């Protein structure tokens, strides 16, 4: 059983909703990626989504764009991200890590080489935003190596296609709560609840909901019907400007604590 599957099984047994924070690797402090990952776990993360910086993040709003730009300016690349995961694994063998990003850095690194290095580092899954089901054949070396493919589903996804995604889902299915980019705020929980209930009834994997969740209130609203919530831009925004590892860890803790509490109170 993969680390991701095991973690969702534990959550189910405990009757808890999972918390999946997203951070851009290398932002705000490139030398403290590993410290940040441990801080996220200490603050209640069940799965970590680690963003691989990319110069042209088409699906991301300004907060994550700028985090990416800052990380790239400091020279952070895919190799550094993989090394950070390997270093994280020295002290944490249990928390699943999903790399989230765009295809070109992986393509440039080489699919086979990436698959091998990522598995050795202790990466559990990959979510490549610009690689929909139709193009996923290029990711075969990743699947062969045992990396789980986290797929996106969206409000615009047609029913027949949703059935395919539910069938193909591994690790967890990431439901994008609205048509838009990361960091936007128009969350309509009523619409999402109906759609997510339907997906959960059919998907071969648990369903996490992301986009637009920014605080305890929005997390609590989603917790009622999702297996996990993903929280990205609001966290990245909170971390920006941290001066040292301790400050960064404290920001993560202060930001995530009420969200963790809201999910657990549900």
């Amino acid at each position, binding site marked *: 059983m993969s680390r991701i599957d095991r973690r969702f099984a534990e959550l189910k047994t405990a009757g808890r909703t999972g918390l999946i924070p997203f951070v851009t690797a290398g932002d705000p402090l490139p030398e403290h990626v590993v410290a940040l990952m441990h801080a996220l776990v200490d603050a209640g993360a069940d799965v970590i989504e680690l963003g691989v*910086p*990319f*110069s*042209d*993040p*088409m*699906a991301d*709003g*300004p907060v994550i*764009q*700028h985090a990416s*730009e800052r990380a*790239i300016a400091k020279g952070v*690349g*895919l*190799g550094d991200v993989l090394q950070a995961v390997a270093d994280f694994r020295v002290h944490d063998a249990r928390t699943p890590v999903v790399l989230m990003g*765009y*295809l*070109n*850095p*992986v*393509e*440039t*690194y080489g699919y086979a080489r990436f698959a091998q290095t990522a598995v050795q580092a202790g990466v559990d899954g990959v979510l490549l*935003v*610009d*690689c*929909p089901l*139709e*193009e996923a054949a290029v990711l075969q070396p990743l699947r062969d190596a045992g990396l789980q493919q986290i*797929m*996106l*589903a*969206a*409000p*615009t*996804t*047609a029913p027949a*296609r949703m059935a395919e*995604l539910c069938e193909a889902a591994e690790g967890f299915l990431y439901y*994008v709560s609205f*048509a*838009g*980019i990361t960091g*936007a705020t128009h969350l309509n929980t009523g619409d999402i609840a109906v759609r997510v209930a339907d997906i959960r009834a059919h998907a071969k994997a648990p369903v996490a909901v992301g986009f637009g969740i920014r605080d305890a209130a929005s997390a609590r609203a989603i917790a009622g019907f999702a297996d996990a919530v993903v929280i990205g831009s609001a966290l990245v925004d909170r971390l920006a400007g941290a001066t040292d590892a301790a400050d960064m860890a404290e920001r993560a803790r202060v930001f995530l604590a009420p969200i963790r509490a809201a999910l657990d109170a549900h």
Partner: protein
Amino acid sequence: MGIEATLFAHTVRSRTQSNGSMNKIADFNAYPDPHGRFGNYGGSYVAETLMAPLAELTEAYLRLREDPAFIAELDRDLKHYVGRPSPIYHAERLSRHVGGARILLKREDLNHTGAHKINNTVGQALVARHMGKPRIIAETGAGQHGVASATVAARLGLKCVVYMGAVDIERQQINVYRMKLLGAEVVPVTSGSKTLKDALNEAMRDWVTNVADTFYIIGTVAGPHPYPMMVRDFNAIVGREARAQMLEEYGRLPDVLTACVGGGSNAIGLFHAFLNDASVRIVGAEAAGEGIATGHHAASLAAGRPGVLHGNRTYVLCDDNGQITETHSISAGLDYPGVGPEHAFLKDAGRAQYVGVTDDEAMEAFHLLARQEGILAALESSHAVAQAIKLAREMSKDQIVLCNLSGRGDKDVHTIAAREGVLI
């Protein structure tokens, strides 16, 4: 003129047999496949949210391009609004000056709004109207596609928002003002390198957010399927006209075609009707900027590697971390780190060659054409003229180079003056 009214490239079937050296591709009109792939290139590399709108667009477009009423409507617009057909012009003095093959210019600079860009925007705006989308968005680099989009939006009474990099806004003030005069809103893009590639990202973000009422008019043969196919089809009128004009006026096909390649819409427009004519050599001119060896260029095909950018697999300029690199060209319209996937395919298939032309070479060609023929070419098109001159010089007097003069240079007068230290 012997130009067929039928507009779309897929209906053109050349009788010329392809020779064996072309990697066994029997019919270049068979591309892309239903997934939008040109061999290893193209496809739809976008987030899930856009898959449904792209499928909707593909379906609408494939239906419309078979619809006689739509074709007639487009034909009428191209003739009466754009001013087609554009002539092929024998640049006699220039040819004599160069002292080699005859140089012919396909005069896309004579179109309404001054470039080939209008061929595409007229077509896509009609598709938008048929799909019932009241709002148009576009990205622009030099501003030519932005102006062409604002133009057709004004004519059809559609709202128009144009995304443009803050750096490009600074260097293309006249086109920014033209767009505003036409009623468009110009939104400065301040992310990334603040140029064309970032404008494309931002337009894509707008589209994904406003997908219900918005039609995205991409300005080049890039982006996810169906854009590379659709934009090619709308520009392929250039090559279809030119091929018929060659046969009618010269009784033969040209020996070589050349066109400038940024994203590659004017080039594919000229090339496409000739792809199955094995006797016609095809050469694309990319922006070599200050020279490919300096790293300050935009020659994705000549100096890049296969990658994924803006929704398709193609040749891109990126570093070892896969980060797309900033490009340089004197012409904003060629200043793009990717290229249309069909060009990547033609390069790998050996059907077309892509070479670099530097800023200096383009400037020299600009001046030569101005003085020899009384034509101010766009800086983008000046790259093609420079390449035509290089080719013609090595060829005999009975041979013909057909060069796409894709746009006129009025928009570049300030850039040229500044480069040459002239205050106007």
